[in-house]
Structures are given as C-alpha cells and as structure tokens.
C-alpha cells in the first residue's frame, strides 16, 4: 500500500502539477516533498511519487538516483556539505572537512550516533568568491575558517535552528539569528 503523506504535502503536489505543460515535470518537486516528509528517498517515497506523477516507479528511481540532492539513505538532522572544488580547495576547504571528521568521528556519508550530524564533500556550490564555504541543509555559510566552523557547529547543536528549505511551505528556514543569509556580494 502506498504511504500517505500529510494533507499539506498532498495539496502541494497537486498545486505544483498544474504549473507545468506536462505533469511529469513535477517529478523533481514531488521527490523533494517526499524527502521532506520521509527523511530520505525510500522505496515508499518512490512509490508515492510514481503515483502522483503517473510515472513507473523505475523511472522515478532513475531520476532519484541521478541527482545528488535526493538521499537514498538517511542523513543527519544537520547535513554539512563542504565545497571541495577548486576555488574552495585552494582557499583551504580540506581543513574544514578534516575538522568535521575529527569532531564527529565519522566518515563522509555516515550519520553520527545521535542522528544529529552527517557530512560530505560536494562539488562547486557557486560561492567561490567567499571560499571556503559549506552548506548546512539548505543554508550557505561562507568565508569559513576551522574556528568559525567550530563556533557554527556549537551554536547549531545548542539552538537547533531551521536551516531547511521546505517545498511544502515554499519557504527557507529562519536560520541562525544574526547570521547573514548571503555573503557573496562584496564590492
């Protein structure tokens, strides 16, 4: 039996489907919605999406596994993605990832025992002018140093802010208080 998501999720996907010339275009937002409610793209999530957009589960699975932002296994409540590509790398991104590894005691892709943290290295996040940087859930943190990263992790652990973008609410979380939403423009 197909999993039932919240009424808000069901309503949202119906609204999104109407935006496109063809309902198949809604497969990506549908996957985001399923991931938001179920935590990751489980087989149940694929089943739900396939029913909503009228595609065979195998085609939904193809899409879900093609893109890096759909997780096929659970990630931590706070998923830290350190940009590893050239501009960040030459500005010291490796130190950030090493610091996370040291701090969390896990390898990239693993989840900490309390379910709070996971981390990985990702490719260019389009923040090269404020390198090195990391994205935590859907929020960018730029111009980082290992010290700043440590402070950030401490604060997040304590304050537990909402850093996610919600497809259902079409809204990004409030984030950390007094933290800039964007640091990229400095002239």
């Amino acid at each position, binding site marked *: 039996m197909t999993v039932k998501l919240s009424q808000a999720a069901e309503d949202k996907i119906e609204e999104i489907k109407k935006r496109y010339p063809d309902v198949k275009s809604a497969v*990506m937002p549908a996957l985001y919605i399923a991931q938001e409610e179920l935590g990751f793209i489980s087989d149940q999530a694929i089943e739900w999406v396939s029913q909503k957009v009228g595609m065979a589960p195998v085609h939904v699975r*193809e899409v879900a596994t093609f893109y890096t*932002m759909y997780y096929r296994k659970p990630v931590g409540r706070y998923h830290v993605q350190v940009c590893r590509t*050239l501009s960040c*790398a030459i500005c010291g991104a490796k130190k950030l990832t090493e610091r996370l590894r040291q701090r969390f005691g896990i390898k990239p892709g693993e989840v900490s025992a309390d379910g709070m943290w996971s981390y990985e290295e990702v*490719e260019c996040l389009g923040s090269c*002018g404020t390198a090195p940087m990391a994205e935590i859930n859907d929020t960018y943190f730029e111009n980082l140093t290992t010290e700043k990263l440590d402070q950030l992790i401490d604060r997040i652990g304590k304050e537990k802010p909402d850093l996610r973008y919600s497809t259902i609410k079409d809204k990004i979380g409030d984030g950390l208080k007094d933290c800039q939403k*964007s640091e*990229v*423009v400095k002239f």
Partner: protein
Amino acid sequence: MAQHPSILLKNIKQPGQHTLSGYESRGGYSTIRKVLKMEPAKVTDEVKTSGLRGRGGAGFGCGVKWGFIPKGNTKPVYLINNADESEPGTFKDRVLLELDPHLVIEGMLICAWAVQSNWSCIYIRGEYGYPYTRIKAAVDEAYAKGYLGDNIFGTGFKHHMVVHRGAGAYICGEETALLNSLEGKKGQPRLKPPFFPAAIGLYGCPTIVNNTETLAALPWILENGGKAYAAIGTEKSTGTKLISASGHINKPGVYEIALGYPLLQFIEDECGGIRGGKKLKAVIPGGSSMPVLRADELAGVNIDYESLVKAGSHLGSGGFMVMDETTDMVEVALNVAHFYAHESCGQCTPCREGGHWIEKIFRRIAHGDGLGGDVQLVESICGQVAGHTICAFGEALSWPAQAFIRKFPDEFKHKIGDALVGIRSKRESLNFEYEGAH
C-alpha cells in the same frame, strides 16, 4: 581603475532593489511596457544589432538563437532561464537572482514577447536555497500586480512563469540536459544537431534556453538600443560581462567589466592583486572547463571572446580563478579531474570512463606513484574523449586536463621522476582524502 559601464549591476547595491516597488522606483518595468507595443520581430532585430552573446559559456548570438524558431510554427513556444549556474568558479547569476530578481523577470518578459512565448521556467540549481526564495518571491509579487499572468499590463499578452529547482547535477546546465530534466527524466543531454531546442525543445515544442545574465541585459538593450550596447566592448565581444573572481586574490567578488578589458589590469585593479604579496602563477579565465593560462602568457590578453581564444583559452562563463606561486598544479589538476569524473552523466562511454581514468592517473602522480608514460596516457585519453561525446562535457573534461600537463610539464615530470627513482617527498595535499575512498 577603469570606469566600466554599469548595465547589469547598476542598482545592485540599492536598498530594496529585490522588491517590486524598489525595482520600479528606479525605472524598472518601464522598458517592457514599451516593448509590448513593438513588433516582436523588431525586438529580435534590436538584440541582433546589439551583438549580445550567450553568457552561460558558449557565447552564441542571442538574437540569432531566437531566430531559429521555425517559421509558421503552430506549437507553443517555451522560454527557459538557465540559472543552473554550476560551472566551478562561477557565481554571477546568483547575484542577479538574489539582489535584482525583477531585472531578470523583465528580461525574460522581453524575450517572451520577442519569441511569443506564454510559458517560461527559471531552472535554478537546487543548492541555491536563498537565491531561490528571492526570485520566487519576485515572481509572486509580479503575479500579484498583474505583471505576469493572463493579461500583462492590461495588454492581453499572456505569460506564466515557474521557478523550478534542480537537484545537484552539473550537467543540467547543458541546455538539452536541462530540458530532459524538466521533462521528468534523468538530466542527460540530447544529440544535436540535427535538432536544436529552438526547433524541438521542451516536450517537442520550440524552446529558447538563455542564461540568466543574458536575459538580464535585455532591458538595457531595449531601452538604449542595440547600437548603444554594441558600442561597448569590442567588435565581436559587445557589451559588459559579469566576471566571478575567486582564488588567491585580495578582493574576490562579482565585477561587471566592459569586454576587451586587459586581464592583468583586472587582477591588479579590480581584484586588488594577489593575496599576501605573492606572485601570480596561473589563471583559469572562464570556469574550470576552460584551459588554464600561465602568468607569462597573460601579457596583452584582454577579457573578451576573441582575445582569450587567441591566448589558448575561452571566456566561458567568466568564472575567473586565480592561483598564486605556491599552488601545486598536479593537485589542481587532480581537483578539477575529480569534479568531471563525478559530474559525468554517464551517457557516453568515453566521458564516463575517461573522466575516472584521468582522475586515477592524476591521483597516482600526486601520491608519488606516477609511472613513466602517464602524461602521454592522459594526452591519449583526452584525445579519445573530446569530440566523441553527445555534449560538450567531453571537451570540458579534456581541455583542462590537457592544459595542466602541457603548461606545467615540469611539475608532472618532477613528481613522476621522483617516483621512478624511489624518492618519497612529503606531500602537501590539496584534497581531502580518507581511507576507503576511491
């Protein structure tokens, strides 16, 4: 410092520019009102006159592209704003989407009128959470005021706009991969020629795919005329270009320059020179797919399409990455090769396999395990990838790899030579590595 015309970033620092009222208070949405009274073909002609070239990387004539929609077409025409900005070193579209989103929307409306499109989509990369909320809020505001919808400004022109989030695939910036992605498929490119998206695009309908920066230049061009735009820059590289400057420079950021501006002057004046008083070693001028240029190759080179081609590279997306004298080019080559190995969509064998081979060879050279003949092997692989794939990813993968080994042969030879005679020197790795990986 040279004075550059300000077309794209003119109002970027103004407070409230991202809101409709802020944008309108500085003359926003006045051009589109005039454009809607023009013949659509005249709009296209004006853009052709301007010489505006696609700012996403390929540099194809914008007006020419619009002209490829088949005559007598009866199908709906779609417009896609390619905001999938993923080329390493590029972060300019983000600035426009975050700080002047209505400029982008007005540009899209101008294009929509020219090609008579009633539906458009802004395909923004999934990681851009905050820029997404800004452009989405702007679209919502425009709808609320009747600037989008069934009867725009009461003229009877209908246009609907959707903001669509990608999900972390570099290849979806390639226009046909983007179309497949938007059709709910894997984001793998389509074969072209024979059919280009302007003839057969989204769901088989004529589709114009333009980069965000290209579209954002349209309000100025239609307001001031194509000739005025063509008067800026050089003969074949008209207008201004956003340059995303990053790496070992004092003032990284997004700069708007008139095309034809001297490259070294840009590093000194705009970017504030090299960090820590060090010497310049190399520059990648157009995003990591473009060949690297050595410091000694830069004298007399200007930032425009022709001059950079003459110098052996390309303007690409304007992702300008600067490296100082301490940079280990073998590690840089490995970093870039890893990116392309990771981002290959897997459709064509030469790219899917070749990318990993090149990365493996660069890794073993970096680790001090290089073999004699490794450099020649990379050359040979690159030759078999470039030109043998459906999309330009094959070139994007091969060009930088070839450039690193050709322009810094001594660094590769040195490491391989050490390995061959059994010297193990301490490695300063640029890339994070952990046991079990690779």
